[in-house]
Structure formats: C-alpha cells, structure tokens
C-alpha cells in the first residue's frame, strides 16, 4: 500500500523523542539491501556484535538457552507511506512464541541510529522517529493471541489490556510472565537487527516509559550492544531481605524482587543509563531508585521530579529536551552536557551543609537540592522541599534546615540549564544525630504556600495560572483539576509536614468562590496516594461549602482544625475537590 503523503511531514509536530538528533543523523546512503517481503531470513551473522553477551546466566535469563532457539525471522509485510517504510517482521523469541515487530525507517536507510521504543501493548509504526532519520523498533509484547494471521505476537501468556495490573506479572515461573517474555523478545529483536544494514546497534537507544521502563532496565543488564538506555519512571518495586519496603510489607516478595526487580539487575549492564523519575511514583518507589542507583556499574544520569507523580508542572523536568543532551552524547558523541557530582553532607559552623561540584558547560538556570524529611516510607506522600544550591568558590553549597534533629531526611542535588535540561546526583539518606546534630537549627515556616513566589513545587495538579490579585497582596493561583493532560480530578497540595508544626492548631486556606453551586471539599490524607481513593478511609474530610450551598463569590478564609485530623503525624497531602471538577483559585495556605 502506498499513499500520497505530500507535505505530511511538514505539517506534523516534530517529535519530542527525536528532535535533538534531527540534525545529527548523517545523510542516508543509497545502497540499502533490505530483504524483500515474504522472504525467510537467515539468522543473524555469526560475527559477534560488540557488547553482545552470549553465555551468561543473569537472573531469570539464561542467555545461552535463549540463544539456542532459532530466530527463524520472516518479513511478513512492508507498507510505504511516502518515503517511510513500515516493515513487519516475525521471529521466534521463545519456543512457541512468534514475536511480531514493526521496523520504521526511511527508504534507503543505511546504518542509521536506532530507537527501540518499548510499547506496553502491541507494536506500533513509528512514523515520526523514522522521519527524523532513526530506525525505530517496536516489538509486540505477548498478548495471548493465537491467530497467526493477526498483526500481533502469537503464543505466550494471555495479557488483557483492560485487566492489566502491574502486580500480576511477577510470576513464579518466568514463562508465565509478561516481563520475561517481553524482555526476551526485545533481546532477540536486537539479535535479529544485527543482520540488518539499515540500523547501527551501537548507536541505538532503548527507551521505556512507566511500565515498559522495567523491561528497559532488564534489557540493560542483558545487552551491552545499544548505546544507552533511557527510562522514565519504570524501575518498579523494591523488597528488602525481610520483604519490607519503607517499614511496610513490600508490594512484592523478596523472591519476586530478586527475579524481577530493576535493582537486582542493575549491576550487570555496562552501557549508560538515563533515568527520569518521580520521587513519589507509585511503581518506582524511592527505595527501588536508591537500590538501582547504588548497584549500577555504568555511567548513570538521573533526573529528579519532586511532588508531581507523572503529571506536568511548569518545572518540566521530563519534557523536552529531557534525556536528549545525554542521549545524543552517548549515541552521537555530542558534547558532554553540564553535570553535578555526588554531594556530601557535613556540619560546618553549626550548619548542615550539602556540598557538590558542578561541571558547568554553560550558565545554569537552576541549582538546588531536594530534601524530604521523615523516616523511610510513605513513598507516595512525601513532601520534597527545594533549597538553593549556591556557588561557593569552586563548589556549590546548600544549607539544610534542621527542624528536628531526630527526624532523618533524604537529599539529592539537581541542576538545570537555560535550555531546559535537568540532571541530578545520587539520593542520600541522612540522620542528623549521626552527623552530630543534637538540636534544631531552624523553625518550620508557617506559610506553606505563598502564591507570590509563583512556584508550583508543591502543586501536584498540572496547570497553574498565576494571578496578581489575592489576599494580603500575595496573589493567587488558578488550578484546573480535570485538564485531560493532568487528570487527577482533584487539586493536590503537597507541602504537608505536620511532624514539624509544633503547637499547630489549624490550617488556614484562602479560596476565591466562583458564585456557583457547591460542594467544595478539602481532604487531609495520610499514607497518601496521588489521588483520594474513597474506598480507602485514609483521610479526614472537611466540607468547606456544603452541597446545596453556593461557593460565594469572592475571597474567604477557610480553617481546618488539626485536632480533627485523623493520624495527623502521618498526614502528607491536602486535596481540594470542587463540584464538576471546576477550577479553583487558591491564595495563601499556612498553619498556625
């Protein structure tokens, strides 16, 4: 099938994924020798590609046994759209499973850089990546499909996209597991691609977002052929030797962690890894991130995303260009971007100071540390504070306020540049008393949210419109809870650390009514998730405007008495809900 594509690409948005390499990819060679449709292709050439691991046994993966299975690749279809080719290939990934894969590339492609986009379900054509001179590789995970005529993988465990829980795939028998099957399929896809002149595996990047990131983390352990691995969130759960995570029973057992946990595989990979990760992610919990970071033996660059789960804020740590400065450095040899070395925490003149060196390739836009107080655990509800990391001679330093010497904290540094890319260093867990700090050296601020700062650090809801008008001349923010791109249904405010509110009696919130019907409700939640699950009674509800009453137009102060809040020391989030998920205008929030 060929279609007219006049000016298709001129009109399309440039892909965030591939923008940065649009100029870096060499011109296409004309002498491509792509196999023809329907041809049964011989296995990959015997010549071993650099970085190919052959005989090792890594976790649940027996590479020798896996590679003993003939690939028997077959090109089953070729579709053209303008000068872009979508090629369908089937190969045997494990006995009884014929994996379906789509390669997308420009006609005439020769030794182009590759991008493996790990998809959650189905293989997809990648027109935009191909347009930008990549060979894009998309492999269909097992679905349980048994119809060989379908453009899908045949065989393997049944995976229903309408009943897909991440927790269901940590199977006792790897052969029943999506994780095992998809990782092996990706590995074997790379084996097959050794035989294809269109792509250069040494310039190929493997990328996975959220759940697919776990497969990227596994593949990183198994295969040193690609140039780098890029993972957004996706590192999954951790379970300590006692089966615990953050003082609670871990979502998976220790055995499951050893079989499937990203941290268990981190030490094996040699190729660089970039990870962009929410510090309050449901799936990639902080203990898992720290375990992966510590175990990685390769170059690693982590970007930290505080207080917003997967949602977007004006900080845009994971938006364009996100991984590209590092990705293109590893993939194309582009110049090494600015970076921050590991930090140290020490007492100096009674202050707790965080110190790190920064390799500045250009002026920095931001340099800060993120600090979260409290013992390990409450992974989804922790508040992350930002303190400035300032240049002090040859180094950068930040002062960490100690509000209570008995309360430990996590800390990491991060820098960003005017072009919008971020990079951080490793997270550390610090117990002030072990540093020799015996008393507090700071008082926790009463103001929890000051709109005049125009910072949405503590606003997990995405879209913030800052308004000059507000109580006390501090301005205000208008938040939209049901923006389809930041779909929470509620507004979540994250700067809630009641352990430091010594003698605190209440929270004061200024809201501007819109003159429309109520209700308007506030929730203070403990052991927080990133939404209020009304089937889980982990919150105290305050009816600010009851049903049947009007949210009176104009500003009003609402007071939430702390004496009525259940499990106050464990409370981590304040939610607001409006009727019909209407926007809400919020002024100053404080405790007193």
């Amino acid at each position, binding site marked *: 099938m060929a279609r007219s594509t006049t000016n298709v690409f001129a009109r399309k948005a440039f892909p965030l994924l591939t923008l940065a390499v649009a100029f870096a990819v060499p011109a296409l060679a004309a002498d491509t020798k792509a196999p023809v449709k329907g041809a049964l292709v011989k296995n990959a050439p015997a010549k071993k590609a650099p970085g190919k691991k052959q005989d090792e046994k890594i976790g649940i993966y027996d590479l020798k046994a896996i590679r003993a299975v003939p690939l028997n690749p077959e090109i089953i279809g070729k579709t053209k759209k303008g000068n872009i080719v979508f090629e369908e290939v089937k190969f045997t990934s494990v006995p009884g499973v014929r994996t379906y894969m789509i390669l997308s590339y420009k006609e005439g492609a020769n030794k182009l850089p590759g991008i493996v986009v790990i998809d959650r379900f189905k293989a997809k054509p990648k027109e935009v990546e191909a347009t930008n001179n990549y060979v894009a590789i998309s492999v269909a995970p097992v679905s349980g499909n048994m119809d060989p005529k379908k453009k899908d993988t045949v065989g393997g465990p049944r995976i229903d996209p309408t009943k897909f829980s991440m927790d269901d795939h940590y199977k006792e028998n790897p052969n029943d597991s999506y994780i095992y099957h998809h990782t092996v399929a990706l590995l074997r896809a790379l084996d097959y691609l050794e035989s294809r002149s269109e792509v250069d595996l040494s310039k190929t990047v493997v990328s996975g977002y959220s759940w697919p990131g776990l497969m990227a983390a596994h593949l990183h352990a198994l295969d040193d052929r690609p140039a780098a691995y890029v993972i957004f969130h996706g590192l999954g759960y951790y379970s300590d030797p006692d089966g615990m995570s953050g003082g609670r029973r871990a979502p998976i057992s220790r055995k499951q962690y050893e079989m499937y946990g990203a941290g268990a595989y981190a030490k094996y990979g040699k190729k660089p890894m970039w990870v962009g990760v929410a510090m309050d992610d449901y799936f990639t919990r902080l203990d898992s991130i720290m375990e992966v970071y510590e175990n990685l033996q390769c170059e690693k660059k982590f970007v930290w995303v505080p207080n917003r789960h997967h949602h977007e804020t004006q900080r845009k740590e994971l938006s364009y260009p996100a991984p590209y400065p590092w990705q293109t450095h590893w993939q194309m040899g582009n110049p090494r971007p600015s970076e921050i070395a590991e930090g140290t925490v020490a007492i100096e003149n009674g202050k707790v100071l965080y110190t790190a060196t920064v390799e500045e390739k250009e002026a920095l836009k931001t340099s800060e540390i993120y600090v979260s107080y409290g013992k390990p655990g409450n992974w989804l509800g922790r508040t992350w504070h930002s303190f400035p990391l300032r240049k002090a001679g040859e180094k950068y330093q930040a002062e960490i306020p100690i509000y209570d010497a008995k309360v430990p904290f996590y800390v990491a540094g991060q820098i960003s540049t005017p*072009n919008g890319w971020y990079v951080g260093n490793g997270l550390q867990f610090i117990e002030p008393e072990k540093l020799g700090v015996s008393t507090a050296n700071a008082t926790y601020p009463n103001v929890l949210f000051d709109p005049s700062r125009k910072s949405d650090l503590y606003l997990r809801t995405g879209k913030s419109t800052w308004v000059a008008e507000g109580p006390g001349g501090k301005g205000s923010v208008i938040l939209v809870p049901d923006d389809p791109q930041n779909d*929470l249904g509620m507004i979540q405010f994250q700067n809630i650390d009641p352990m430091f509110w010594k003698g605190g009696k209440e929270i004061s919130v200024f809201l501007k009514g819109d003159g429309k019907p109520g209700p308007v409700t506030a929730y203070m939640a403990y052991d927080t998730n990133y939404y209020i699950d009304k089937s889980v009674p982990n919150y105290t509800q305050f009816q600010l405007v009851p049903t049947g009453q009007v949210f009176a137009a104009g500003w009003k102060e609402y007071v939430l008495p702390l004496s009525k809040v259940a499990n106050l020391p464990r409370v981590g989030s304040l939610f607001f809900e409006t009727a019909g998920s209407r926007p809400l205008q919020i002024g100053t929030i404080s405790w007193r």
Partner: protein
Amino acid sequence: MALTTLLSAVVALQAPSTPVTADLVLLATSPTPDVAKIRPYRSALVAQEYQVKTIVSGKNPDVKAGSKIRLFRWGLMDGKPTKVGKAKKGDKVRLTFKPLAGWTQMEREFQVDTLESDLAITYFVEVGKPK
C-alpha cells in the same frame, strides 16, 4: 555545531500540529477498562475507528471525506468512565483531534487498543475531554 546551538535550532522548528474538526461515524471501538483492573492507572485512552464524513475545520493529509481514521479518546478519567464507553457503531459525532505521532504525552498514556492492527490507518487523539 555546539550542542546548545543545535538544540536551540531544533526548538525553533517545533510547531504544534493544527487540530482538525470533522463529522465522523463510529465504525468500531475498543472496550473501556474498569479502573479497578488497571491500577495504579486512573485514566485510559481508548481506540476507536471512524469514517470521516465531512471536515469542518483544519487540515491533515490523512483526514479526507470517506477515509478511515482511528482516534484515541479518554474512556476513563480520574477513575471514572466517560461517555466514550457508551458509544455504539453508527454513532455520528463531531470531534476535534490531533495526530498521535509526536504527541509524546499521549503516546505514553495507558492505551487500550483492541482494534485489528492496520498500518495504513493513522491514529489521532481527541483534543480535550470527551463531551
């Protein structure tokens, strides 16, 4: 070329794709998942196939009167099903949509697409919340 220069040049090339509004007839739909079955996800895009009847506004070479397109629409938002799950074959709707390719955020969302794979059909995403 310095990396900063390179990336600045690239950023300058970014142009949001123009949305298309068209009158459509529903040909097929994927099921809307139950939020309890896909935890921790709270939202899901659901793939539907439409025939284009009339283009109301906008332009895209893959959207022509009589052509088939596929649309991802929010079937589940904030844990609640939208009206997308009630759509029936033959329903006539006017929708506004943009191409999925290159809309990175939407490409990463939890998607349910049980339609038969067809490389010849372009995928779009409905702009905004289903009305």
